[in-house]
């Protein structure tokens, strides 16, 4: 770790293109295969490619069982020479980007389709929770079976006690995202949310109340990783990858999670991009609960640890505000489509920096920071990563 001797290679020559979102549904009778197929097709159509042009395929999904990416190749008629399956939940988007970019850069693949999708059948969420991970099965699910609500309630409770954060502070994040979601025609949540409504909502797992929780939905997201010259030749809007970081099981000695792996690697993130937090035009955090968005704002260097509450009080987090955050409404207001929750911020960020976000477009969105956070294996999220991407003009 300390004293890294080799400077990391840049991602020059590799770009992100053809962001695709299949509109989410609260419940779906379809399968993950169906959702993934639709996202893949939409992304390929946007790029003017056929399935035969795809020689790299990366999949993230919780509800594919008993299949993996392997089964999907035959199911969807793909013949890739590079294949990846990413089990990192909310960190799967940036992880897919990192791996695919290096594959394209090295010539192992020409075009990698990165797809994530999950269905949400009635009762599938409960079944997933009870067998989510071995540690969760042994050491958290037997304690009230509150699932991620209860785990994040513990983190939120501890954060509030330690830093004096209030429910209003978390409410600001949720209310701003709902405001953003109202501009996103695909968002599941379609009615405005006031801070009073947020504060008055019923408790789910104290201090987590109804509007702190995401709505599990069926849905899918996709994007393509390809050579810059190919994107240019096809006339595709595309984004450059300026830097990435990734870390798993960071700070294992912290008695409870107060920070993620970003805090270990944030200096490298900005150094590799030759950027500073001030250069970021919009931020897409992983937002299954507002406390974790607040931790990302801190750990990614926008303010010091413990200053998240003051930061959200001092900034406007909406599309038109001075700190645009989770511009599609994020998972909190657009819905959580399983592992696609790890893609929603990245796919939206690609749209933003390529000027194709439509109704949610942030003015002059040149550079975006996207962060991922995944897998509450026992008491905390294990995977964390982040990427800084810029539009062609930046």
């Amino acid at each position: 770790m300390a004293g890294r001797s080799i400077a990391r290679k840049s991602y020059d020559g590799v770009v992100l293109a053809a962001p695709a979102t299949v509109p989410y549904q609260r419940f779906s009778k379809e399968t993950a295969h169906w959702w993934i197929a639709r996202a893949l097709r939409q992304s390929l159509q946007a790029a003017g490619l056929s399935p035969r042009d795809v020689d790299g395929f990366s999949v993230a999904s919780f509800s594919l069982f008993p299949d993996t990416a392997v089964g999907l190749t035959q199911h969807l008629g793909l013949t890739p020479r590079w294949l990846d399956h990413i089990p990192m939940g909310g960190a799967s988007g940036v992880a897919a980007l990192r791996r695919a970019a290096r594959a394209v850069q090295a010539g192992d693949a020409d075009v990698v389709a990165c797809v994530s999708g999950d269905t949400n059948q009635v009762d599938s969420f409960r079944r997933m929770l009870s067998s989510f991970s071995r540690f969760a099965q042994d050491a958290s699910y037997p304690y009230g079976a509150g699932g991620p609500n209860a785990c994040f309630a513990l983190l939120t409770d501890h954060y509030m006690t330690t830093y004096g954060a209030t429910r209003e502070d978390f409410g600001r994040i949720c209310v701003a995202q709902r405001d953003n979601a109202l501009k996103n025609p695909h968002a599941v949540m379609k009615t405005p949310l006031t801070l009073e409504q947020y504060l008055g909502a019923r408790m789910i797992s104290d201090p987590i109340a109804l509007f702190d929780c995401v709505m599990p939905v069926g849905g899918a997201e996709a994007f393509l990783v390809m050579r810059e010259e190919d994107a240019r030749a096809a006339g595709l809007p595309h984004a450059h990858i300026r830097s990435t970081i990734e870390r798993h099981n960071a700070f294992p000695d912290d008695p409870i999670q107060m920070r993620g792996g970003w805090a270990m690697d944030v200096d490298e993130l900005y150094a590799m991009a030759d950027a500073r937090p001030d250069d970021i035009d919009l931020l897409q955090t992983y937002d299954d609960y507002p406390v974790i968005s607040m931790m990302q704002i801190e750990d990614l260097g926008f303010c010091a640890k413990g200053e998240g509450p003051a930061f959200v009080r001092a900034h406007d987090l909406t599309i038109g505000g001075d700190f645009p955050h989770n511009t599609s409404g994020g998972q909190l207001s657009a819905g959580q489509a399983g592992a696609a929750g790890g893609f929603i911020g990245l796919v939206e960020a690609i749209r933003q920096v390529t000027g194709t976000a439509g109704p949610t477009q942030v003015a002059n969105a040149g550079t975006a920071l996207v962060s991922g956070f995944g897998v509450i294996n026992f008491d905390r999220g294990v995977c964390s990563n982040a990427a800084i991407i810029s539009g062609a003009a930046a």
Partner: protein
Amino acid sequence: MTSPIVPPPKKDPQQRTRIQTLPAGARSRAALGLTAAAAEGRFMLQVCAECGAVQYPPRDACSNCLSVDLPWKDIAPGGRLIAETTVRTSTSTYFRERTPWRVGTVRLDAGPSVICHVHGDVARNGPVHIINRLDKSGQGVLFALPAERTQNMEDDPQLRELTANPKFRRVLITDGRSENALALAQAFAKAEASIIFIGEAEGWRPYKHREALRAVPSVQLVPLDVTDTSSVTELAAEIGGKTDILVNNARFMRPGGIMARGDTVFARDEMEVNYLGLMRLAQAFGPAMLGRGADGGNSAAAWVNILSVYAYANMPALGAFSASSAAAYSLSQCLRAEMRPGGIRVMNVYTGPTDDDWHQPLPPPKVAPSALARAIVAGLKDGLEDVFVGDVAQDLIDRWRAGPKILEREMSENDGGGA
């Protein structure tokens, strides 16, 4: 402060009896170490044999040095609650029916943080005392008690889910003639059992402590002969639906192994009472108890077997009796598995020689009836599965765990005190 529980209302026979649902019972093999420790009420975690790191959750390799040598050790129970939540919405039917449910993160003095159930009297960010108990699925779970005792602490509804406290419950003690019957009745009366049924075989035959038994508050003598199937069935038809705790103290025991006896008459009696008696009781009372595991404040809660510790290793001086105890022990494991869907605890209480007529020639230490009775009530209050009463039983199980074959040889050296 915990509100004291009140005597449950009389049951409305028109209402449907609530079906027992269970908390998630799936565990990895490593995590079953917690369950094994909880069976005896011990708080144990894996401790790396090489680097000493305390591990949680249970695992297969040390997270500090990758050693796979992770023996379970008793752990200091102190810690502090560093975060908490009250679960109000749960995906589990069991918890849905029992919300609000308090859960917290405790940082153990021993190192790791654990997620655990939290007693209502624990203060926010307060000191706690961690216990490891069996939940309704029969799996070990960690529970944070206040570091200092509080009033009515046992009555916390979450704690009661982990225990089989006799308070306001109805108890059946199967053999009134046993020399421990009076001590048992007195102990359950002290523990505020609401009715103490006492089985009596051949009620016309006098025995010395009958009047004393009748004088114990809440005692009702009922006809019961565990060697007689129709007697057992008749009593179950009458009181099976209101037997919350069954304590099987019926026992037949005579000294001698194989060759000291000229025939199988005593051996047959030992099996009739100690083994088949248990089976008859289980066949008659088991189904009704199984169906009443979630039947309110006086739900069916526990089945207690009093077994000789020589069930684990034969004591040749009591060789035939030891064999019948081993049969009963094996059957109790079957009963435990069959009772599990109802959330009914099967507690085995193992004793060495007891202080009674049939152990008269044996030297001390012997288990006094009052000590046995205290251990049973305490075990129920802790929701245990295995209780070893007295020095002989504790010593024997320690030796058995260290090496059953070595113990077998040691037992053959033991003349049982010249019996």
